[in-house]
């Protein structure tokens, strides 16, 4: 019971990290970055490449964060920037195209087979009669630290406040001297770096990488962001944790286990039906 809870919380931390990228980009650029999940995959393959070149795992993690950050910025510049001001549907479809692009490039380079990545192996500790993997604990602690740091960054730094301003009202922020393009770029960079971190934690849980690695966690994290209220940073964290815990508990009950994915998505639909803006989302009035 307790170990399931811990598993769920650490999976939730992973979802929350990915969901943060979705939610920040949505809040600031008003677009759904469907390719966000595939950034995780890019990070995972970076780690695989470093390890096969006999690099230290730490170097791999750093390289993954760097490569993902750069990839996020490049994707934003090439695919999304020309569409600023176009209809949301068009941007969403481009994002889907980018996601396909990343997956197929990965498949061409690394092959479609799943490859094992042994990043690190941990033992278990005993907390109140439950065997808990140390990797799980690390995920939980580091994930929480990253999320607290991000919250502080957005609240108290100049750049963070500029981000808030842009998400509140882009036009007004621009008039106040905020460089909107730069802020959007920074948002993509941070979101992608968080995705890389999520990728590292994901590899700690499931040590294998394939071109479609990021698509399912990506979609679930997107669902988490929507459950929490897309555009809201605490919402993404809450949604991620809720989804992670629900998934692990569903998987632990034999009768429900095959339906775990269905249960998660059904939860999403239910929450949206009751509260169409998500749990912590802000209501926006539509004007004519």
């Amino acid at each position, binding site marked *: 019971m307790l170990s399931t809870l811990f598993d769920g919380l650490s999976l939730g931390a992973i979802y929350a990290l990915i969901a943060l990228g979705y939610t920040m980009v949505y809040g600031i650029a008003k677009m759904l970055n469907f390719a966000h999940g595939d950034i995780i995959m890019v990070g995972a393959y970076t780690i695989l490449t470093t390890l096969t070149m006999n690099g230290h795992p730490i170097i791999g993690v750093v390289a993954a964060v760097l490569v993902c950050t750069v990839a996020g910025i490049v994707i934003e510049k090439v695919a999304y920037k020309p569409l600023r001001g176009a209809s949301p549907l068009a941007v969403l479809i481009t994002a889907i195209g980018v996601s396909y692009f990343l997956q197929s490039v990965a498949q061409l380079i690394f092959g479609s087979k799943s490859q094992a990545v042994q990043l690190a192996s941990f033992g278990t500790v005993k907390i109140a009669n439950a065997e808990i993997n140390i990797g799980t604990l690390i995920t939980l602690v580091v994930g929480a630290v990253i999320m607290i740091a991000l919250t502080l960054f957005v609240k108290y730094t100049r750049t963070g406040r500029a981000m808030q301003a842009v998400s509140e009202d882009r036009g007004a922020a621009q008039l106040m001297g905020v460089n909107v393009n730069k802020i959007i770029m920074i948002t993509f960079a941070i979101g992608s770096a968080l995705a890389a971190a999520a990728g590292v934690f994901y590899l700690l849980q499931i040590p294998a990488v394939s071109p479609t690695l990021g698509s399912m966690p990506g979609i679930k994290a997107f669902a988490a962001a929507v459950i929490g209220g897309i555009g809201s940073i605490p919402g993404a964290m809450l949604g991620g944790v809720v989804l992670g815990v629900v998934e692990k508990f569903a998987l632990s009950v034999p009768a429900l286990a095959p339906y775990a994915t269905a249960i998660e998505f059904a939860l999403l639909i239910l929450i*949206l039906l009751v509260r169409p803006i998500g749990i912590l989302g802000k209501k926006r009035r539509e004007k004519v």
Partner: protein
Amino acid sequence: MNYFKNIKNAFKFKNCINYIIVGAMLIISLVMSSMGELPRSSADLLAQMGYSILLAVSLNLVVGFLGELSLGHAGFMCVGAYIGCYFANSLYEVIDSKLLVLIISMLIGGSVAAVFGLIIGLPALRLKGDYLAIVTLAFGEIVRTIFKNQPAFGAALGLSTKRFGSDLYIVALIVVLISLFLIQNIIRSKHGRAITAIRDNEIAAKAMGINITYYKLFVFVFAAFFAGVAGVIFGSKVTPVTYSFFSFNYSIEILVMVVLGGMGNITGSIISAVFITYLNFQLQDKLPGELAALKYLVYAIILILVVIYNNAPKLAALREKLSISNAISSKKKSKNPAAQHDDKNRWDVVPTKIPMDEIVSTDLKQEKAYTPDKPEKGGTE
């Protein structure tokens, strides 16, 4: 009088082109098969094209005409395929005629899918844009997971179905013709105009007295029905029907067809469905192993380029220059100079050139509505 005018309209080339394309496919293949020149693989390909057209055109109804993004179209197809073929399996024991069984199972599969369309259409009333997209995506995954775990439907191995045989393409293309007839006529009617009005501005449409609830549900149910029928055709061609086929990726593939053909353009959907199905068919055998990913790479690049070309605000001038329909209409105008009015000189009387979008909508095009560095026309500063 009006009636005859309608009939005359119906025979205009512009309105017939879709029937001509599909009809030509059907007739040519029928002639070829009567001469014994139609190989089995081509007949298969034609049936595949048939259900692809159905899927693309019905998704276009939702995405192109209603303006709501649906990422779960494969889910409706999944429902149709499983339910329709399940009934077909039991119907074969009672009815001898294969054709009759196929028709009944298509109706059953389509109807059940339509019920699911209604279920998904209900949240669509409360949700918008991106939120609806995730709900449809979630629906597709839920349906797939449920069928995967039902022993009655073959569980993970899939539902084994009875193949219809090589003549399936004839039925498929005739079904396409019938559904094109239905869809086109609805789009050209008062109902179709109501649907596009909702797409262009929901609040304005509501103010004009259009029943938004009714039309949104209507489109979802209608599109789901055809997706279900497409699923039954798929199930009569491929056995077993497995849950893994109806993944999120397949929904995206249908969406690619719609986007490539042009949203809100049925002829475009037909052509791109045929083209992509053909491409898939050809590439499947020719690209060995990992090179199969090249197919998706090509998809991705085409998708990104087409969307950027069609939507980027900075490319508007280029689009205007290259647009075919623009070139045609400007030719027509120059033929009849009397029909041209210069609005600029009569600006105080008829403000016809004001783009409605900028006035009524601030929700979608926020940026365009108040760009600070662009002074209003006529303003002297």
